[in-house]
């Protein structure tokens, strides 16, 4: 729901931020996209860490991408490697981890690396939206 964010609407179009969802499961990308689009985010997708790195390196994304939501257990470049890549190459792009397997050690390590939130599936829309909203806020501050 986007009633709290109405101030960000431009010309009637929702423009809350651009979110990259990285997950090897098309169903997860679909449902995260649906949840966030309803709240006015623009959502782009990548099916693994390698594709995610391609996406962030291409065109305007390096400037316009606001948040990356990243799964952990994925083929090619997995989530942990992708997170490490994003942190070192795009330290200003906030990350939210969304994983199917809760692992306290991994969670601690990600939060130490500056990940905004570590969410375990299944996550409610409200929790996801609040994590993404915090991440976008962080991104806005970094741009100032």
């Amino acid at each position: 729901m986007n009633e709290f964010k109405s101030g960000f609407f431009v010309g009637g179009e929702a423009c809350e931020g651009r979110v990259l969802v990285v997950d090897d499961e098309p169903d997860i990308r679909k449902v995260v996209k649906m949840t966030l689009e309803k709240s006015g985010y623009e959502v782009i997708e990548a099916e693994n860490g390698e594709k995610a790195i391609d996406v962030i390196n291409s065109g305007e994304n390096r400037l316009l991408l606001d948040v990356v939501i990243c799964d952990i257990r994925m083929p090619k470049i997995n989530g942990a490697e992708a997170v490490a890549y994003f942190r070192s190459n795009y330290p200003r792009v906030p990350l939210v981890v969304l994983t199917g397997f809760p692992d306290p050690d991994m969670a601690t390590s990600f939060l130490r690396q500056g990940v905004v939130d570590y969410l375990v599936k299944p996550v409610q829309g409200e929790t996801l939206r609040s994590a993404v909203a915090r991440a976008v806020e962080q991104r806005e501050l970094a741009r100032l």
Partner: protein
Amino acid sequence: MVKVVLLCNRATVSLQGDRLMERSDPTKVAILGGGRGGRALLDLLHQIPSIEIVGIADSDPAAPGLQRARELKVPVTTNVPDLISDHGVGLLLDVTGDPEMEAYLHAHKLPTAEILSGSASRLLWKLIQHESKLEAELLHSEKLAGIGSFAAGIAHDINNPLQLILGLAENLTVERDLAAVHEQARDIIEAVKQTSAICRDLTRYSRRASPHGNVMVSVNGKLDEALKIARYASSFHDIEMIKHYQSGAAVTGNPDELLHVLVNLITNAVHAMERRGGTLTLETTLLDGQVGVRISDTGCGIAPDNIPEIFEPFFTTKAPGKGTGLGLYNVKTIINKMHGTIAVDSQIDKGTTVTLTFPNAEPVGQGWPS
């Protein structure tokens, strides 16, 4: 290139009629020696319902076996006479490696107690002859230990459909487009089916192998079933699958046990390719009345020094607590029982091929009931 062929040259050790001893009470066992062997026996035997461990003794109170026993709430002592004079003890397992211990035990044990002395793996072998149910228990306990490693895979495979279900259901509370409502409801139904299939596969796998069971089994079907199970145990990401199945490959045996063998071998193959990916090839053949099953990986390979030992009980290259050391031991026991052979062909950094050969269950070219 190291090549080892282990032929089925001895009959299975257990479940032979004349050794069958029906017991209603568990066998009371005392372990003497708390080194690595004592610890391995303790880890294994404490899970087995037909065995009760009355205690473990070692002169060193900090011995690893004694430490483990404290965790398991098994009585520990540094005093051997105390332990062996315990009245219900039926079996003394001596893994001290001390040549004088055996003589001491013979002189001081209670008349009803039996003694087994030697290395842990030798004792296990003898125990199986002693305790008819042990072989089935070993298989089951190793299987259950393995299921612990499925946690990450199961969590991933259940939480993903749950995420879909939750997201869609949340959306349905506000969705006004009837066509979208119908489509999302159908997606939810599919996701629920997917989740319940996981539970069904796993409960089938984790149950005890059915005791009666020499039937005709389709090897190709079992390989596919084993693949599904093995996916929980290890990540198949970055692994390319090649299947060459000869139709009509059927063997005679216990289907649950054959499944266990195949899950074990596929899981090993995938673990060998864990870091860098590779190709997993599953192949079945029918040749000269023999059914061949080949499982090949392009992984790290097995060190030549280790190959002669891989079928030994308690042999493992995994970290403590990560492997029971009984996986391939159980594999070989089952294959022997099926009158089959297992051959391992491995090269460091190139990969491993495991070839199983069984007598064909049926004349070539005929089908079998699926």
